[in-house]
């Protein structure tokens, strides 16, 4: 076991897989010699050569389009989109091509393709370095979407994604790359070193896709979150003294409904939290599923605490970000009924 931050864990997942399987390659803007703008692919080009870790032109449709061709050949590309905000030029390749390759060829071609992308806000990145577009991909038949919340899960989920025979979108909440940010922006940030999930095995292991984790057991209310929001939720309930059960979804699609149902049927209350904009967000899907499956166990309407339906503002970030006040208010509302 070694203490790793998220970046080191993600780098280690690449390293482990590139050493084990010479069909695994890493590609993207600045990922080669420099090792990526967040350094997630640092040292890989030196270790595995420029044929297996290389820079690409600034062309997201080109990155994903060529990665699809490589996966069709039989490689397992791990393609980095430098910021999730830049993924839209590749949307057609992901939605119309990657997602449907297995289906439209009746299983003749499958794509073992991983698309990594730093995502989410809290870093004063403005509207082009802060977005959380997961629901756009969760809506597409044939794509899996994964969002880790800690170094241990990040490495295990990324290895599982690389080994998965289908395309996986792997969104990395960049606000927690270096520490489990809890939403209290006016308090000092704790590094990962003090967090139990920063203990990461150096070798190969997986965290299964499609399995949520109950990160805190509780009786009063179920709070479903993922990514950065897991830490914000935990800090919020601690500050408010609420005995909430907190589920870290980890994989957005396929959804682990068993874990959610079991928890909501126990607590009778549910709050869904995400950083992404509210309308049409993934919280709507979660809320609908909980309502459909747990209606007779619910004591109160399912609440949502999310980003607002505006573009991500720069200077007003802490008014936009779903922090402890918004989340605390939603939880208390779910408890009041």
């Amino acid at each position: 076991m070694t203490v790793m931050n998220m970046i080191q864990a993600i780098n280690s997942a690449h390293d482990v897989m590139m050493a084990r399987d010479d069909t695994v390659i890493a590609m993207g803007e600045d990922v080669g010699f420099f090792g990526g703008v967040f350094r997630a692919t640092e040292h890989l080009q030196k270790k595995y050569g420029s044929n297996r870790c290389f820079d690409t032109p600034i062309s997201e449709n080109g990155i994903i389009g060529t990665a699809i061709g490589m996966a069709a050949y039989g490689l397992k590309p791990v393609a980095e989109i430098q910021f999730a905000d830049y993924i839209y030029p590749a949307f057609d390749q992901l939605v119309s091509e990657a997602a449907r390759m297995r289906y439209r060829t009746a299983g003749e071609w499958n794509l073992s393709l991983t698309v990594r992308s730093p995502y989410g806000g809290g870093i004063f990145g403005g509207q082009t370095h802060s977005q959380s577009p997961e629901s756009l991909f969760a809506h597409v038949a044939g794509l899996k979407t994964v969002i880790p919340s800690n170094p241990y899960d990040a490495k295990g989920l990324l290895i599982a994604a690389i080994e998965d025979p289908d395309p996986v979108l792997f969104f990395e909440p960049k606000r927690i790359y270096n520490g489990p940010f809890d939403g209290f922006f006016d308090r000092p940030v704790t590094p990962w070193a003090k967090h139990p999930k920063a203990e990461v095995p150096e070798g190969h292991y997986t965290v299964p896709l499609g399995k949520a984790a109950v990160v805190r057991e509780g009786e009063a209310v179920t709070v479903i979150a993922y990514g950065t929001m897991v830490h914000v939720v935990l800090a919020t309930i601690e500050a408010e003294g609420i005995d909430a059960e907190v589920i870290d979804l980890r994989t957005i699609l396929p959804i682990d409904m068993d874990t959610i149902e079991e928890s909501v049927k126990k607590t009778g209350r549910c709050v869904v939290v995400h950083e992404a904009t509210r309308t049409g967000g993934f919280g709507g899907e979660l809320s609908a599923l909980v309502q459909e499956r747990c209606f007779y166990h619910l004591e109160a309407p399912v609440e949502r605490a999310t980003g607002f339906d505006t573009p991500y503002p720069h200077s007003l970030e802490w008014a936009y970000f779903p922090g402890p006040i918004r989340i605390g208010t939603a939880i208390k509302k779910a408890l009041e009924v």
Partner: protein
Amino acid sequence: MTSDIERPNRPALSLHVPEPNARPGDEIDFSHIVIPAAGSVRKPDVSASPAETHELVYSLVRVLDDDGNAVGMWDPRLDPDQLRRIYRDMVVVRIFDDRMYRAQRQGKTSFYMKSTGEEAVAVAAAHALDREDMTFPTYRQQGILVARGYPLRDMMCQVYSNRADPLKGRQLPIMYSSRDYGFFTISGNLATQYPQAVGWAMASAIRGDSRIASAYIGDGSTAEGDFHAAVTFAGVYRAPVILNIVNNQWAISSFSGIAGGDLTTFAARAVGYGIAGLRVDGNDPLAVFAATRWAADRARLNLGPTLIEMFTYRVEGHSTSDDPSAYRPKNAGAAWPLGDPIARLKQHLVVLGEWDDAREADLLETVEAEVRAAQREAEKQGTLVTSSIEFPQDVTTMFEDVFEQMPWHLREQQAQMVAELEAKRK
């Protein structure tokens, strides 16, 4: 909307919207097409620098002259047996297209697309590639499958979306896919296959393989961003790929000028990207073969991609859903000054003394019978069902292959669908 600010002495701006030189009712006019004499274009050495090819992008590689002789440096000097195989495959494609077009008109399927006049672009190119090379076609290169010996019956089963459809009824007719025959799955989203072909070729290079990729795109969809991405990546990584632009002059109803075809040649795109480029008479099977082989040889020598404009003409409508008489003069295809690829190769074979009327009659009879027999076999497996829930496929397969493992939400929806159909049957 006018501005209050005075801007004297400035002419009013006007927008240029390109128009073809003939619309329905006009005389067909191909006088603007510049046709260099066959054999007049030099052939660079296979190891030439890209720049040494760049004057060729404004010319036209042609081998067959008007009298059916193969002339000049680009003559691939194929033996008569190979010429006859190319000829036969093109004839198969045309007869196949005619029968499937009629099958669509008879209501046996929803949709069809012919490749009339463009058979050489697919067939002769496939003959110039290795069988193991991967092709990334558009919907008008069915000739590649034919040239590689894919069973006609299986193509028809796909067109009919029937019980034996290899793609289980999931794809629109003619959107074939065959990994074993080096024919990448066709997408209806145009240009997406172009960067994929480059990626496949990059992978082949990464693995030290010797196979190359050959990609196809239409003149119209060169306007897509994927075209730019693909050619950029191909050039940057010197990918072993042939980038064919099939300029058949028409993107449904939009003439090639709407894609920038009036401004320069499509082959000239190669100049800006610094890769090798050729402009080829796509209705000359020998020129198509020679250019493809030249580009393939370069790719195999790690000399990188070649962009080839296959200059041809879409003789028929875009698809069975299209009526070209609504936007261009009738019978424009018959007036195309570069002729018909099948007629031209036949003329060449006759000139060589390798073909005659008896052999032609025999071939047509054999191929007609072969296509008819394939159609009979295909129709035994059913044709498209559009007004019944007695589907050709096991309906539960609808939920397979979304992922390798079916997640719970798809299992639930599958059960829901089965229940719906049971309710309907009651």
